[in-house]
């Protein structure tokens, strides 16, 4: 490895250096979200120290930034092109994160964090796929979102897509006074379908011999020779592709499953069939343009996605949110949570083979929630309702009454009905009890978040652990269940939906300001003055957050939804990364399925509750 660029000695004493000497070289982004620069060769000792001594047991986010075209002032003189970013949390202590940066020049490797945090598995593969950074010691460093025949690493700033025009939007060609041109005529990069050198699409064969990173508590037979030696009637194991086109994968998702009889020996998730490089598009967009784009991540919960993104940008740019808008945000987020949990319960039952009856009962109330969404935002699923500093428009007249009726009457009743319908069913119990077990420690090590860890007895909920918005004002509990099996993952969702109803009732009771009175709850008020004036910089109608970076997360219905944003003071995000809960929860899929039957794998996947829009991004 080359010598790391010297970092100016700060006046502040650098932490952790007494425990791991020479680990922390300096700090970065002090104003917005302080991060520590770490020497690459000291990374693993430092991570181990943080995990074992200081209780930072949860690797929330691992991603990378390519600083090739960075225009900010603060990074002058830094040679290394890439920075790999780690965000660590403590599930025991709660509170904020520790951010670590590792500067990497091109063509250098970084030690893999999989040994310390097994949850780094999928995220490191993603970084390798999109940035081409190799992680030394990763057991299965293959492309994950893109296929092997993809030339280049698209998140690098010098990678240009087909029909490339400009680095950032708004594109000049779209301006009304610009001449009209066919895109095909002006391609600097041609059709841009080249293959990596030495790669032939006709002779390429997909590698079936995969190495599952399995932490399963059950014995796994990986080695064919060992399989031969096993003292029982030898049967050949076969590889079954569950997916990509399969009714139970809730989209285009593939589970490469090695089964013996019907018992799963190994299972490897394969994703990326819906990959559209959300993050690259996000970096081309302006800050505001990304707001409707977040709807398309977890398309069931667009309101939560909106909020997570709005919250990150608000923290980065220092924008205040009016009181009424905070309440509206909580109401929308909790409605989304109920909707999502009912949906996932219904479709878990579908995966159990209950032919849609429970699903249809579960989504009856969802229709009414969607009606409410449509009324305020104009769209049922792609709501695009939040703005930096509020929401896009105030509630319509009568909306609150309808929401109160829903929260007081319909939703509690619907949840009780689902409870009665499903919870005591013999077949449901027989199918779900004890299936897909993974201990709480394993789940946290695998970076699993959301209802899954709460079903393992870990009372960790970001709304309590690191409150955002106005969640500290409401009275609610974090339900936990002890067994960490599919049944508990089902039941925890029901309990959480009940808590969400509680929050909803309080928020609908306390929401300040009428339809006419009170402070404006929508961002257009601030937009009229122009963001530039608020931020004290030059005027302008496009938001330009100050140079810096932020990692901010919320408790989305599916788990921890985080946005990692880097701004270089320009109208477009320099880096826009989504920490998608569905994607990272899939870390646990393989370990949870091993040793169970094929039929169980379907149910385990259903209980993880993924949405492919978010997994593949």
């Amino acid at each position, binding site marked *: 490895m080359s010598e790391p660029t010297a970092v100016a000695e700060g006046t502040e004493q650098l932490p952790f250096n007494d425990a791991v000497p020479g680990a922390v070289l300096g700090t970065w982004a002090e104003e917005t979200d302080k991060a520590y620069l770490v020497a690459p060769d000291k990374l693993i000792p430092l991570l181990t120290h943080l995990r074992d001594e200081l209780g930072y047991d949860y690797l929330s986010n691992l991603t990378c930034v390519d600083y090739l075209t960075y225009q900010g002032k603060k990074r002058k003189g830094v040679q290394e092109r890439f920075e790999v970013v780690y965000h660590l949390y403590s599930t025991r202590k709660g509170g904020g994160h520790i951010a670590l940066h590792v500067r990497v020049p091109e063509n250098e490797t970084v030690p893999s964090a999989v040994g310390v945090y097994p949850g780094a598995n999928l995220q490191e593969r993603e970084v390798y796929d999109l940035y081409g950074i190799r992680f030394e010691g990763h057991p299965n460093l293959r492309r994950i979102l893109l296929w092997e025949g993809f030339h280049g690493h698209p998140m690098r700033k010098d990678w240009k897509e087909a029909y490339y025009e400009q680095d950032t939007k708004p594109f000049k060609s779209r301006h009304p006074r610009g001449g009209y041109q066919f895109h095909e005529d002006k391609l600097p990069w041609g059709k841009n379908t080249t293959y990596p050198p030495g790669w032939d699409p006709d002779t390429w064969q997909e590698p079936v011999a995969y190495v599952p990173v399995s932490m399963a508590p059950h014995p796994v037979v990986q080695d064919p020779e060992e399989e031969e030696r096993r*003292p*029982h*009637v030898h*049967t*050949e194991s*076969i590889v079954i592709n569950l997916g990509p086109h399969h009714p139970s994968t809730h989209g285009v998702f593939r589970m490469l499953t090695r089964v013996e009889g019907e018992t799963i020996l190994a299972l490897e998730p394969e994703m990326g069939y819906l990959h559209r490089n959300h993050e690259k598009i996000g970096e081309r967009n302006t800050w505001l343009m990304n707001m409707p784009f977040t709807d398309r991540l977890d398309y069931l919960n667009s309101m939560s996605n909106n909020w997570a993104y709005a919250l990150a940008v608000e923290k980065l740019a220092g924008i205040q949110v009016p009181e009424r808008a905070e309440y509206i945000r909580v109401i929308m987020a909790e409605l989304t949570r109920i909707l999502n949990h009912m949906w996932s319960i219904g479709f878990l039952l579908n995966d159990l083979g209950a032919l849609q009856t429970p699903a249809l009962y579960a989504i009856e109330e969802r229709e009414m929630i969607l009606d409410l969404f449509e009324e305020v935002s104009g769209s049922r699923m792609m709501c695009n309702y939040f703005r930096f500093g509020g929401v896009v428009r105030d509630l319509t007249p009568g909306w609150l009454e309808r929401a109160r009726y829903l929260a007081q009457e319909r939703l509690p009743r619907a949840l009780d009905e689902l409870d009665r319908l499903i919870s005591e069913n013999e077949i449901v119990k027989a199918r779900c009890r004890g299936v897909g077990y993974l201990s709480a420690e394993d789940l946290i090590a695998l970076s699993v978040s959301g209802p899954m860890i709460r079903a393992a007895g870990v009372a960790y909920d970001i709304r309590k652990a690191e409150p955002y918005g106005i969640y500290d004002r409401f009275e609610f509990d974090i339900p936990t269940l002890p067994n960490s099996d599919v049944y508990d993952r089902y039941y925890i969702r029901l309990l959480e939906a009940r808590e969400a109803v509680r929050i909803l009732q309080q928020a609908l009771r306390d929401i300040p300001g009428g339809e006419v009175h009170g402070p404006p709850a929508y961002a257009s008020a601030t937009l009229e003055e122009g963001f530039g004036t608020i931020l004290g910089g030059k005027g302008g109608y496009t938001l330009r957050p100050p140079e810096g970076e932020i990692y901010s997360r919320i408790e989305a219905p599916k788990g921890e939804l985080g946005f990692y944003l880097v701004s270089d003071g320009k109208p477009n995000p320099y880096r826009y990364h989504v920490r998608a809960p569905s994607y990272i929860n899939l870390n646990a899929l393989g370990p949870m399925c091993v040793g169970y039957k094929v039929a169980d794998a379907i149910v385990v996947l259903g209980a993880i509750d993924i949405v492919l829009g978010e997994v593949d991004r």
Partner: protein
Amino acid sequence: MPTLPVPTFTQVVFVLIAAFTVISGLGVVVARNLFHSALLLAATFFGVAGLYVMLEAEFLAVTQILIYVGAVATLITFAIMLTRGAMHGETNPLNRQWGKAALFAFLFLVGLLGYLGGIPWPAPFQAIQADEGLIARLGEQLVTRYMVSLEVMGLLLMVALVGAILLARDDKP
């Protein structure tokens, strides 16, 4: 010119069923695929059951279907499906001894025909009353005259079952 006798309905049916049985029996031997052989074996069993019906032994016919087609042949196909190697393509090749085997089969047939020719068949046979009385008598015979053989058979199957379980048992707890 001698007039050919018009075949009765029964005769036509008999010829059809017999031809079906013989052809599928031949197929069992010559089929190139093990699974096809197994299926043709089931078809042969069917043909034999048809012949039993022609003989007005419905009970025997139905039992034949129940046991041979419904259980034995199903089990054979099941076993073939469990062994993937023996599934598709030419999995039932003729080996080098097929010529000798055919020769011996032919000799056996000749011998059998010679023996059959010597049996005095009761030409105008009496129709047996194929009602429940017959089945009841069959049952009675099984628990009186053939008692020992029945029990021995049961014991044999029991032993086979226990052996199969022992073989298939996983050593895992």
